[in-house]
């Protein structure tokens, strides 16, 4: 920690910023978000921009717990403040974020991955969620399942930044909240892209919970090939518990349907009464049932093989106008954790290249990587970005054909893949 600080200050003295140190396979990446410094050592081989974005998300999650202005005030008063005192009890949020970031392609592409759902059902649910005039301080109402957004109702004047949604969804699905036996949680949270200086209140309740036994699975992560992110602040020692707690972090992959109501005011009773009424309404008209059935039966995800495109193994399609992605569930040969990690890293590498994130010169429209096991291609156009993984023996023409076929399929299914025209109030 002392060395890190010495290094950083040497560069700061020259009006420069230390970005990263390469040492063989190991890269040490730094992110300075005064008053905090973030440091990550990784030997996984992902582009530097990816590590930086992970550290940036970590910073946003910390801001969601202690606002930017609180942080500034505290460190102005006491430069040697131990931040762990303020984060006490919030470690699960950071651990679940670390687990999530590793494989979450929506976070990697700064977009949203909504739950695939029948369009008319989505619309019906969204309409039930439009708040009444009594709910005067309501900011956003979000319905989530499987860690994905089903619908989002917002005021006309505020849109919501994808990063805020990711932080919020991570918060909702961290064990402190999702495993809580309470019927509702009411937590102060800061949405850093909305307002880094203040808290809003989040009312979180799960409308439908599956059997407790099926609710979570234990994560088993091999230790050797993992990028170890550690939070470091200017005067905060790295969290010594990080390494161990991380392995016992439970990732929730359940079909619990969560209703999240973000309010600028403190009127818990009003929010609760309204949420109870909404829940009743969704129950009565059968949409909650329909939703639960869709989630439980796996209709909310699809496989690449269902598209019937020769050689296609996986893809990520980002609609740039919706700022949303859609992707199939990982299947053979990418169904193991290691294989998923490898493919996600390849996606990140291609994404980094076509966005010239690591200072590459010129914007590429198309980038193709051929490994022994597959071809990964990234293609950027005005309306969309597409990343496809294909069998390695495919000729070039077939690669292009497959990419075109994916875009045609997405166009056709757009209605249920993306969240469009969610109501505003």
């Amino acid at each position, binding site marked *: 920690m002392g060395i890190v600080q010495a290094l950083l200050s040497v560069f700061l003295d020259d009006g420069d910023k230390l970005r990263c140190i390469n040492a063989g396979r190991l890269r040490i990446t730094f992110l300075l978000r005064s008053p905090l410094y973030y440091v990550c050592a990784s030997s996984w081989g992902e582009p530097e921009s990816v590590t930086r974005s992970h550290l940036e998300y970590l910073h946003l999650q910390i801001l969601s717990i*202690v606002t930017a202005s609180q942080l500034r005030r505290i460190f102005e008063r006491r430069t040697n403040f131990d931040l762990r*005192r*303020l984060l*006490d*009890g*919030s470690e*699960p949020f950071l651990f679940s974020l670390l687990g999530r970031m590793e494989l979450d392609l929506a976070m990697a592409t700064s977009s949203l991955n909504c739950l695939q759902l029948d369009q008319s059902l989505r619309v019906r649910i969204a309409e039930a969620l439009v708040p009444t005039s009594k709910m005067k301080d309501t900011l956003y109402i979000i319905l989530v399942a499987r860690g994905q957004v089903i619908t989002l109702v917002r005021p006309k004047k505020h849109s919501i930044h994808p990063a805020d949604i990711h932080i919020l969804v991570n918060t909702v699905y*961290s*064990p*402190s*909240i999702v*495993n*809580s*036996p*309470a*019927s*509702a*949680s*009411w*937590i*102060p949270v800061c949405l850093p892209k909305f307002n880094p200086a203040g808290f809003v209140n*989040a009312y979180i309740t799960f409308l439908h919970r599956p059997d407790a036994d099926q609710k979570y699975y234990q994560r088993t992560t091999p230790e050797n090939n993992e990028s170890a992110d550690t939070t470091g602040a200017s005067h905060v020692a790295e969290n010594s*518990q990080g390494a161990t707690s991380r392995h016992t972090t439970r990732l929730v992959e359940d079909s619990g349907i969560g209703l999240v109501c973000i309010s600028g005011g*403190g*009127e*818990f*009773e*009003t929010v*609760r*009464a309204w949420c*109870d*009424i909404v829940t*009743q309404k969704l129950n009565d008209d059968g949409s909650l049932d329909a939703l639960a059935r869709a989630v439980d039966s796996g209709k909310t995800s699809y496989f690449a093989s269902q598209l019937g495109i020769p050689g296609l193994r996986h893809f990520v399609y980002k609609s740039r106008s919706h700022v949303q992605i859609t992707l199939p569930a990982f299947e053979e040969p990418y169904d193991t954790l290691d294989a998923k990690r490898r493919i996600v890293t390849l996606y990140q590498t291609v994404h980094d290249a076509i966005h010239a994130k690591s200072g590459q010169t010129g914007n590429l429209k198309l980038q193709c990587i051929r490994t022994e096991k597959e071809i990964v291609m990234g293609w950027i156009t005005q309306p969309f970005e597409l990343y496809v993984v294909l069998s390695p023996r495919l000729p070039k023409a077939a690669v292009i054909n497959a990419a075109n076929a994916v875009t045609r399929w997405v166009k056709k299914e757009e209605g249920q893949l993306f969240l469009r025209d969610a109501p505003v109030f």
Partner: protein
Amino acid sequence: MADAASGSVDRSVQVKLVLLGEAAVGKSSVVLRFVSNEFQANKEPTIGAAFLTQKCRLEDRVLRYEIWDTAGQERFHSLAPMYYRNAQAAVVVYDVTKATSLEKAKSWVKELQRQANPNIVIALAGNKVDLVQTSAMSSGSTPSSESEDEADDATATPGESPSVSGGEPESLRQVPREEAQAYATEAGLLFFETSAKSGEGIVEIFTEIAKKIPIEHILASTRGGAGRSGGAGGRAGGAREDVNLEEQQSKKDGCNC
């Protein structure tokens, strides 16, 4: 004794109750034992506050506890008034194996007596009494499960597990029962030693609170819609009461109570 409500309910009285106390003394575990008769080791710390309800039968009355289980971390302290402002009862929890947690409990009691509803019923609960019982059950005496208990503490507040470790379980106790009892009597509190793990004393707290709550007073004030602290909030609460009760009844089959 307190019992889950069953069958027809004529009149149920809503009692708002808040749990306060230092981090990791077992507030959530106390509520979980009361609401679902369960115990979870290695519980994650509560964030903000969690809301739970439980019905409780007392003679011919049914009480519906609306429970605010608050987070004990210091950074949430400023939010506490939001929860105790309209509360009719409070359970202030400390950990019998940690002397400082009683000091924190005392400061909560002081704050409640100064700022909460003047009629508030306050109970003091010394939790984790299973850790200091030699004769009770096998769990307390075997060294292996004892270290498990300590591990529970460690997860909730890293680095704050009881300083006295090993030896006789009784040596873990840092707050003598008599001392806490004397303080409770002096301050006019109900007092219990509890174990959320074994269930000891948990139902008793809520039953004794129920007996001490001025039920007629609550009924009168909610009916009339006046004379209740909170002004506008109180009135709105009165209007919603019927809705909530009906919902609770229709939901009852689905939940644990």
